[in-house]
C-alpha cells in the first residue's frame, strides 16, 4: 500500500486510495489534520501532532515547529539538549503519520508519495526524501503540491480545461498553471516563493502587537516560550478575523494582561507587503505558460491560508473572477498525493491519467564570456531552462579557457540571473583534462532532471571518453549517506509516546497550557480541572476517565470561548 502524505509547514495529512476515493486517514486523536509539531515528552519519548503543539510554549525546549522552512539547510534545532536537523524533525512527524496510517488501514505501510512545494529546490527535495528514509518510508515519488491539488481536482472534471492553482500554505506559496486534455495532466508553468505563507502573516501580527503595545512594556518576547504564545495568539486572531470584523489580541503573563483590538482593515494594512509579494510569481507563471488570464478556465485555491477572506478577495480582483471554492483547501493536496500513489500502483479503479510536471527554475553552470580580448568570469550558462517538462536531459558544450589547463571546475547553479553571484550555488564538479591549447578541449555538460525533481549533472570528455557524475558534496544542505545511517540509528533508538494514552496526554498538555495562560479565577478553575483529571487517571478506570475527559473538554471549550 502506498500512501499519500501532505507534509505541510503548519499541518500534515495522510490519505490513501480506497478503491473509489482518496480517503483521508485520521490520527490517533481522530483528527484529519496533524499539526506539524514534534517534541519529546517528560520521559524523553517522542510525541508529535496536537500534543506537541499544546506543549510548544509550556515546553519550548522540548518541542519544534515550522521545521519545513529549514529543509535543505544545515540549520539544527535543539530538542532536549540534542541538535536535530529539519530532516530528522520531519522524520519524527512522518513516523507518527505512518503509524496513524497503519492503524487506520490495518496493514503495514512502507511506501509513500510525499508532496513538496513546487518551488522547492534540489537540496530541499533531497532533504524531504531523506526525511522519508529516516522515517522508514520508501519515497516512491515527490509530487508538487499544486500538481497534487490539480490531480485531485482534475479527477472530478473530465473534459478539457486550463486552470491555475494558487497554493498558499503555512509557509510556502506556489502557483502552477495546468492543462488537462485527453487524460493528460500537463503542468505548463510553476513559480513560487518558498518563504511566504500563513506563518508570515502571524509574524506580522505579532510585530504589530509588540509595536502597538511597546516592547519596553512587555515581558521579553524573544524568549522561545513567549514567542510561541504570541504566535499562537496571532494565528487565533487571524482566524477569528475571517468571520468577525474585530478580534482581540490578548497576552496574559503573571497577573498582568495586555490587550489589543485588531480590525479587519488593520489586518489588511499589516498584510499588505505580503499580499504584494503574491503578484510576481503569478505573473511569471502566466508569462512562462504563454497564457492569457482570459484563457484560464478556473482558479483553484489550495492551502489553509487561502481561507482568509483577504486572500480570496485579492485573488478575485487579480483575476477578475471568483475562484473555485468547492474544494477543501486543506485536504486536497493529501488527496492528490494519494491519487498519485494509486496511479503509481496502477490501481485498476482509476482511469489512466498521465501527469507531466516541469522544472520550476533554470539550472546552469558558470562560464566566462569573451569581451574584447579578455574573459570575464561569473556568467551564467543555462542548461535546463525553467518550466521545461521533466524528466529532461539537456547538454551544452563548453571548452577550456587557458593553455595547458589541467582541470576544469564546473560550478552548478540554480536561478535566473545572468550573473551566477545572484543565483543559488548547488555544487561543483571537477574533471581533469589532458593539457592542450585553450579552447581545444570540449566538454559535454549534461544535466538530467528526473521526475522527482532531482538533478544529476554529468560531464563527458569526448577526447578521452572520460565521464564524471556529480554528487553534490559541497552543499551543506544535503546529508551524506553515512550521516543518514547514523541519524537513522539515533532516531530509531528514540521511543515513541504510547499511542493509547495520547488522548489523555493531549488533555493534560492543554490544561497545562491554559493554566499558564490564564490569571486569577480562571487559573484556579483550570487547576481544579487538572487535579480532577489526574485523580481520574489514577483510578485507571477507562470508563470514568472517558467521562471526565468529555466533561473537561466541554468546560475548556466553554472557557476558551469566554476569554
Amino acid at each position, binding site marked *: 500500500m502506498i500512501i499519500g502524505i501532505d507534509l505541510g509547514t503548519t499541518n500534515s495529512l495522510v490519505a490513501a486510495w480506497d478503491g473509489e476515493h482518496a480517503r483521508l486517514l485520521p490520527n490517533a486523536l481522530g483528527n484529519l489534520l496533524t499539526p506539524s509539531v514534534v517534541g519529546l515528552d517528560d520521559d524523553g519519548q517522542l510525541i508529535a501532532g496536537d500534543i506537541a503543539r499544546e506543549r510548544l510554549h509550556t515546553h519550548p525546549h522540548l518541542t519544534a515547529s515550522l521545521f519545513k522552512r529549514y529543509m535543505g539547510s544545515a540549520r539544527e534545532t535543539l530538542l532536549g539538549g540534542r541538535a536535530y536537523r529539519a530532516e530528522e524533525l520531519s522524520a519524527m512527524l512522518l513516523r507518527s503519520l505512518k503509524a496513524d496510517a497503519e492503524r487506520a488501514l490495518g496493514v503495514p505501510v512502507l511506501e509513500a508519495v510525499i508532496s513538496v512545494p513546487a518551488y522547492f529546490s534540489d537540496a530541499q527535495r533531497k532533504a524531504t526524501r531523506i526525511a522519508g528514509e529516516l522515517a522508514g518510508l520508501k519515497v516512491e515519488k515527490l509530487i508538487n503540491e499544486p500538481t497534487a491539488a490539480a490531480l485531485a481536482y482534475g479527477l472530478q472534471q473530465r473534459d478539457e480545461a486550463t486552470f491555475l492553482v494558487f497554493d498558499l500554505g503555512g509557509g510556502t506559496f506556489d502557483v502552477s498553471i495546468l492543462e488537462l486534455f485527453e487524460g493528460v495532466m500537463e503542468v505548463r508553468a510553476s513559480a513560487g516563493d518558498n518563504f511566504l505563507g500563513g506563518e508570515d502573516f502571524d509574524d506580522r501580527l505579532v510585530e504589530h502587537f509588540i509595536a502597538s503595545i511597546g516592547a519596553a512594556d512587555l515581558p521579553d518576547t524573544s524568549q522561545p516560550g513567549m514567542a510561541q504564545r504570541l504566535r499562537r495568539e496571532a494565528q487565533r486572531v487571524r482566524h477569528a478575523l475571517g468571520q468577525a470584523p474585530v478580534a482581540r489580541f490578548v497576552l496574559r503573563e503573571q497577573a498582568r494582561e495586555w490587550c489589543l483590538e485588531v480590525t479587519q482593515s488593520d489586518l489588511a494594512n499589516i498584510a499588505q507587503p505580503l499580499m504584494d509579494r503574491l503578484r510576481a510569481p503569478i505573473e511569471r507563471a502566466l508569462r512562462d505558460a504563454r497564457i492569457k488570464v482570459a484563457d484560464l478556465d478556473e482558479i483553484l485555491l489550495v492551502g489553509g491560508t487561502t481561507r482568509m477572506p483577504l486572500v480570496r478577495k485579492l485573488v*478575485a480582483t487579480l483575476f477578475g473572477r471568483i475562484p473555485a471554492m468547492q474544494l477543501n483547501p486543506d485536504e486536497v493536496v493529501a488527496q492528490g498525493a494519494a491519487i498519485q500513489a494509486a496511479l503509481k500502483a496502477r490501481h485498476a479503479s482509476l482511469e489512466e491519467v498521465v501527469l507531466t510536471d516541469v522544472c520550476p527554475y533554470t539550472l546552469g553552470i558558470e562560464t566566462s564570456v569573451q569581451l574584447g580580448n579578455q574573459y570575464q568570469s561569473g556568467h551564467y550558462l543555462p542548461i535546463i531552462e525553467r518550466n521545461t517538462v521533466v524528466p529532461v536531459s539537456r547538454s551544452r558544450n563548453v571548452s577550456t579557457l587557458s593553455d595547458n589547463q589541467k582541470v576544469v571546475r564546473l560550478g552548478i547553479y540554480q536561478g535566473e540571473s545572468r550573473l551566477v553571484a545572484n543565483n543559488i550555488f548547488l555544487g561543483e564538479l571537477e574533471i581533469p583534462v*589532458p593539457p592542450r591549447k585553450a579552447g581545444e578541449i570540449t566538454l559535454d555538460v549534461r544535466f538530467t532532471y528526473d521526475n522527482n525533481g532531482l538533478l544529476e549533472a554529468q560531464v563527458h570528455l569526448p577526447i578521452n571518453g572520460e565521464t564524471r557524475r556529480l554528487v553534490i558534496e559541497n552543499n551543506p544542505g544535503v546529508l551524506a549517506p553515512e550521516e543518514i545511517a547514523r541519524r537513522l540509528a539515533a532516531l530509531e533508538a528514540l521511543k515513541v509516546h504510547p499511542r493509547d494514552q495520547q488522548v489523555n496526554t493531549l488533555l493534560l498538555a492543554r490544561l497545562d497550557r491554559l493554566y499558564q495562560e490564564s490569571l486569577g479565577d480562571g487559573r484556579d478553575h483550570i487547576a481544579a480541572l487538572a487535579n480532577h483529571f489526574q485523580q481520574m487517571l489514577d483510578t485507571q478506570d477507562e470508563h470514568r476517565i472517558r467521562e471526565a475527559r468529555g466533561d473537561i473538554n466541554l468546560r475548556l471549550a466553554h472557557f476558551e470561548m469566554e476569554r
Partner: protein
Amino acid sequence: MSHWQMLGLAPDADERSIKRAYARLLKVHRPDENPDEFQRLRQAYEATLAEAQWRAQVDDEGSYVSLDVSGSTADSPTVVQAPALAISLDDIDVPTSISPPQPSLDQMQQWLVEGRDRQVMDALRVWLASDWLLPFERRQQFELSVLDWLESAEGWSPAFFDGVCKVMGWDEAQATLPCEYWRWDRLIRRCEAQAFAESVRADLTRFETDKVYGQPAALLLKAMADGDRRELADGFDGGDWQRFAQLAQAIEYQYPEVPGQLGLQPVDNWRDWLPPTSYRGIYLFLWVALSVVLITSVFTGLIRKDGLSSAVIMPVLMIAVNWVGMKAYGIWALVAVTAARLDVLLSQWLVPRRWYRQGAGLLLLRHILPGAAPAFLAYIWSGGPAWLRWGSAVAVFLGVLYFTNQALSGGKVSIWARAWRAVKLRVGRLPWHTLQHPGLVVVIVVLVMAATVYWRMKGVA
C-alpha cells in the same frame, strides 16, 4: 524519423490532433517509466505543436490584415484600455466604478520624454498603488506601455531605470521581467552604455580640473596637439596603460556609439600608443647584422687572424656589445623624453607620416638618432671597398628603424608575423602531448639510434 512520423501524423495536422496523438503515445511512453522515450516524444510534440501554432498564426494574420485594410482605423489609441473582465466584480465587494488614477498615462509619457524623472516615479507609484491596476490584464498592459515609453524615450539615466525596475517589481534575478528577454536585454545594454559614457565623462571632467585623474581617458578621447599627447603618454605607468587599453577595448567592442554621443573622437591608432611589449626584434637584428658584418670583415681579410675561431667568438662578443648599447640607449631615452615636445615638433616635419603616426611612432631624437650608433659601428667594423662599408652602415640603420617601428606599432600585424604565428599554431597542433608518454619517447630514441648506427655501418662497409 521526423517529428510528424513519430506522432503518426501528416505534416498538416492541426493542434487538436497533435494533442490527441501525443496523449495516446504518452500512455505508452510514460515519463516515470521510460524517460528516454518520453523525451523523444516530448520533443516531437513540442516541435509539431510549435509548427502547427505558427501555421495557424500565419493564417490568422493573413485574414487579420485583409480585415484591417477594409476597416481602417483613424489613429492608434495610446491609452491603456481596460480589458473586459470575465465576471463582473460586483459579486465580490470590490467597487467596479474605480477609474484610472491621475495623472493620465499621456501626461506620464510626456514627463518621461521631458526627463522629469521625479514626477514620473511619483506617478508610477500612484498608479501601482491604485486598485485600478490590481487585475492582471490591466497591469500587464500598463507594464507593456511603460516599457514602450522607456524604449522610445531618449535621455533617461540608468539610475532612473533602476528606480523604475524597483517600483515596477522587475527583477532579472527573480525572473520577473515584463517582456521577452531580448527586449529586456536591449534596455539593459542601453543602461550599461550610458553608465559607461557617464564614467568616461566623469574621467574627462576630473582631468580638466586637476590633470592627474582621468589621464587614460584624456589620452584616448581628448583632442590635443601631438606634442601634448606624447608628453601625457610618457608620464603613464602600468596602471594607466591598463586602464587605457580597457577603455579603448570597451569602446571598440562594446560601446562604439558612446564617443559619438559624447561628441568625442577616440584616437584611431590607440594600439600604437601602447608601450612596446618586446624589443626582441631589434636585439636579434642587431646581433645578427653586426655579427655578419664582423665575420665578413674577418674573411675579407681586414683583420688577419684565425678566421674560424673569430667566427665563433664574435657573435658571443656581440651579445655583450648589444647589452652595453641598449643600456646606453636607456640613458639617451631619458634625455630624449624630457625633450618630447621639441622631438614631436621636429618629427612632424622630418619623419614620414606612416612612421610618425601622430607621435605614437618613430621620433627623430628618440628613435632615429640613436639608430645612427650601430650604423656607425657597422661602418667602422666592415672591411672592403667604400661602397660596402657605406652599404652595410645604411642597411643596419634602416634595419634598426624597421624593427623599432615594428616594436612600436601595435595592432596591425605584419604579414611575416602572421605567417610565423600560423606556423607556430600548426606546429603546436602536432601531437606533442604523445611525447608525455615516456615509453613512446624511449621507442623513438631507440629507433633513431638504430637508424644512425645502421647508416654509419653502411658507409663503413
